[in-house]
């Protein structure tokens, strides 16, 4: 079934998580890179990415969900298991 960023996963996203993602984006994303997310957003620069996260709109929710999902994969060992498999 479709994984809905706006329901269950998003409900788990706390304000602290959003702040963590914002801090990482602010500190680590180079200004020349652009983000494309499906139908919703394309060619977003760093400032636009951060604004969506701050506004907690649909695009912002997706950005946070992508980063939280990745952090969970690091924490639960799924990422390292996948890396060790190739």
């Amino acid at each position, binding site marked *: 079934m*479709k994984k809905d960023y706006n329901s269950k996963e998003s409900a788990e996203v706390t304000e602290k998580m959003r702040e963590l993602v914002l801090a*990482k984006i602010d500190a680590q994303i180079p200004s020349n890179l652009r983000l494309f997310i499906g*139908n*919703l957003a394309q060619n977003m620069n760093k400032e636009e990415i951060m604004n969506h996260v701050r506004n907690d709109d649909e695009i912002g929710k997706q950005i946070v969900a*992508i980063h939280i999902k990745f952090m969970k*994969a690091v924490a639960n060992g799924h*990422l390292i298991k996948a890396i060790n498999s190739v």
Partner: protein
Amino acid sequence: MKKGLIITLPKSDLVTEYLSYFSEEIVSEAENKDVDLKRLTENEVNKDNFEKVLSKLDYNFIVFNGHGTSTSIKGHKEEILVEEGNNEIILKDRIIFARSCESGASLGIASVTKSKGCFIGYEMPFVFYADGNWDSIPGKDEVARLFLEPSNLVAISILKGHTAKEAHETAKRQTIKNIKKALRMEPQDAYFVVPGLWNNYESQVLHGNPKIDLNSV
């Protein structure tokens, strides 16, 4: 049904420009393997024309580039080409690779019901990052290549004669290899890129017959 590839190449925004540009590697592979090929470009990627071409050529392999939803795949200027509950029957018994957001979530499942075919796609939004310095020359964009090259491998593996399962797994493995590559890049770039690659890795799905290949006609 005949052995051959129909590939959609819309170019109505920067996303579809990138997808179509990188699809030239798929087109080259089809030409190298002498697989019959029909490109639908820009304005040709509309529902009426797509259905007409598919009906006439009856090729067994379709690669879609474009936007999508959980229940649809779109073409040029976001015109819906295939929609669940409407015309997904036209995908029946074929090999489908949809490089479009979310269509693997529901349309992909519906399209393989009572079918010998398969559907490889993404059940969440397909994400990629690009270097703004290269958006007029996507081919030189090594950041975008990290994302689009693995997904190309789904189609390229099928064209090389591999099964749907093998193609699906090859592309996923390459995504992980690119994560490893990205982790060796400058730390700034790595943070930005890796979560997106992981998103595409987790989101890529195979529905239907895993054993089908291009010679299964």
